[in-house]
């Protein structure tokens, strides 16, 4: 099941990020600081941060999902490019996660195998934490990474379709799907 750029744009629309038609949402776009960030501040993520984000998404998304790196790129860039404070929150939890990976497993998060990636999130208490942008490490990880990426996935038509609903809550999928039967 291929996640597409359209899925990412749909998820973005569902999160309130308005994307002007055709704008390319790529990581390098972020590094071209567009004057909206404060002095010396940039929303850009470096390659290692990007790798960590994608590694988290791979753990969170079903194994049937393909195209995860591109989906994450489009979604996250669209999501944070005008919101430096939010980007700072995401970057902060990425570094928390990498620091834990280094001290507990001896390597950055993206270098761990699937089992350890999953295990570390659980050991940090992320599975049961309440999402809270101002909370403990686990609560912030839940808010800025886990729920952020799960929202992007399950509010998109492709993520929804995997569960059986092509017009999930948050996605403006029009007025046809609610009338359609399961086999039509």
């Amino acid at each position, binding site marked *: 099941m291929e996640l597409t750029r359209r899925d990412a744009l749909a998820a973005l629309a569902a999160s309130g990020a308005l994307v002007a038609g055709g704008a390319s949402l790529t990581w390098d776009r972020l590094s071209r600081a567009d004057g909206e960030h404060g002095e010396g501040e940039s929303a850009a993520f470096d390659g290692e941060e990007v790798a960590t984000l994608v590694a988290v998404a791979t753990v969170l998304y079903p194994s049937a999902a393909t195209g995860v790196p591109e989906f994450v790129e489009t979604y996250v860039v669209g999501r944070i490019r005008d*919101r430096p404070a939010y980007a700072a929150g995401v970057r902060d939890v990425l570094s928390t996660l990498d620091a834990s990976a280094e001290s507990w497993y001896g390597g950055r998060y993206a270098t761990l195998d699937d089992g350890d990636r*999953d295990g570390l999130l659980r050991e940090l208490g992320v599975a049961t934490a309440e999402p809270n942008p101002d909370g403990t490490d686990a609560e912030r990880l839940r808010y800025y990474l886990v729920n952020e990426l799960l*929202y992007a*996935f399950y509010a998109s038509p492709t993520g929804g379709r995997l569960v059986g609903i092509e017009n*999930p809550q948050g996605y403006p999928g029009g*007025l046809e799907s*609610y009338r359609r039967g399961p086999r039509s």
Partner: protein
Amino acid sequence: MSDGSGGSDGTRAGTGGEADRRPSGRVDVCVIGSGPAGALVAATLARRGRDVVVLEAGRRFDPAERLRQMERSIRPGGGSVWEMGGARDAFTSPGERRYPLNAARVKGVGGSTLHWQGMVMRLHELDFERRTREGVADDWPIGYDDLAPYYARAERELGVAGAVDDPFAPPRDGPFPMPAFPPSYGDSLFADACERLGVAMHSVGNARNSEAYDGRGPCVGYGTCKPVCPSGAKYTAEVHVAEAEAEGARVVDRAAVQRLEHGDSGEVVEAAVYATPDGEEHRQEARRFVVACGGVETPRLLLLSASDRHPDGLANSSGLVGRYFMDHLFAGVGGRLDEPTRQNHVGFITSECHQFYDDPGRATRGIPGTDADVGSIKLEFLNYAGPSPVEMALGAEEWGDDLLSVLREAYGNEIAMGALVGQLPRRENRVALDRSRTDDHGNPVPAIHWRIDDRTKRTIERANEIQRAILSELGVEITWTVGPENTGPAFHHMGTTRMGTDPEESVVDSTLRTHDLDNCWIASSGVFVTSGAMNPTLTIAALALRVADHVDETL
């Protein structure tokens, strides 16, 4: 919020943090509250060239915020989408039943329609004559016929999508302004079972665009109508606030009215005294006042306006201000079917049944009747039974393939019915002042004394019985019931400033002017004499249009 998208202090650009909130000179009409009632009065009078000021306690919510608010409503941990709670909104609930007041209203430009579901229907003729026809409650001083032309206007103002296919509806002239939303796939599952039992299904009025209307686009299926529609397809009173402003009215947000002050004779209101965020108090003078603060804050404001001349509060010579508080109660039954039910694509209902409204005890081909004394029932066929996968995912303890299987297991087969039942007006159910607690301005908070009587409980049981019969006929494995013990309010405040001809038995007359004050009207479900079992806002809107006519005539 810490995501940099702005806070609740209302100081963001566009929300008028630094707006000029000083009073205007003496205007024709001062409207207090900008929910549907206040906004419709203001827009109607402004259209007729009247000089109108609206004072609104809450802030303006910028439509550009709405998608973010939607996301907050879906993602856990986002807090109250409409920022209800805290010292401003403090209340107590000392009655037998706890009343969750801050889930039941919104303070902001647009009032509770910011959050509402948008189901709109007319009351039945019977609702205006319960005493005469059934020997319970009281009659209204006006009848359905008096309101019918205003109902038609209200349907055009709000923009109602509906069809003339309800055999139980009261008489109407002409069609709805927009076609009804076609029935859902879920409705079609119910259809055969209802047919076999002799239960009628029909469309339901929605204040939601089924096609472009009044400058707003059609519904696009975000599915989050309650608490927030990001597309503007769902009506909110912001529509009429904008129109009032375009017609020259002035709308002052974050201007909480503290009290109304009367003149020396005690027979007219002279000014509304309001507080602004800078800590100042101002007096807005006007020739006419319309109080439209909703069913709880309206009686509270009158009680807070007590004076030497009116020691029990304004407009309260009857002692009835705040009394006869009513709400509708929810009844529901749901479960699982062994085939897909396709729920949660949209956030609103497309079919209802009003067959048990005028005659709730009636038997049908497949449902036994009852002789018990019960009140009106409005049945709903839900389109959002069971979990929404995206909401569930965000609260889950699993992820990856495990999460997907959990979601697939939970989503897909849920099905449910809801219902509203009415409550009889009872003196002891009331909104009073609790002098032991104060709000952010030092005013006593509202205390909600609320209790559910036995007749209402019997009516809920009857609703459950009908719901169970339909779901069983359909082959549903029933897994939950909301009955008399775990019922809750539908968030429709009514009755607290009741209408009547006798000044000793009511607060306002049949034109909704207070008996005690010559220049003060109330536009609110507070004036309802009976609750019926229909969602109240179309009736509120019709009454507001009528208030505007009456006020205009006196100017």
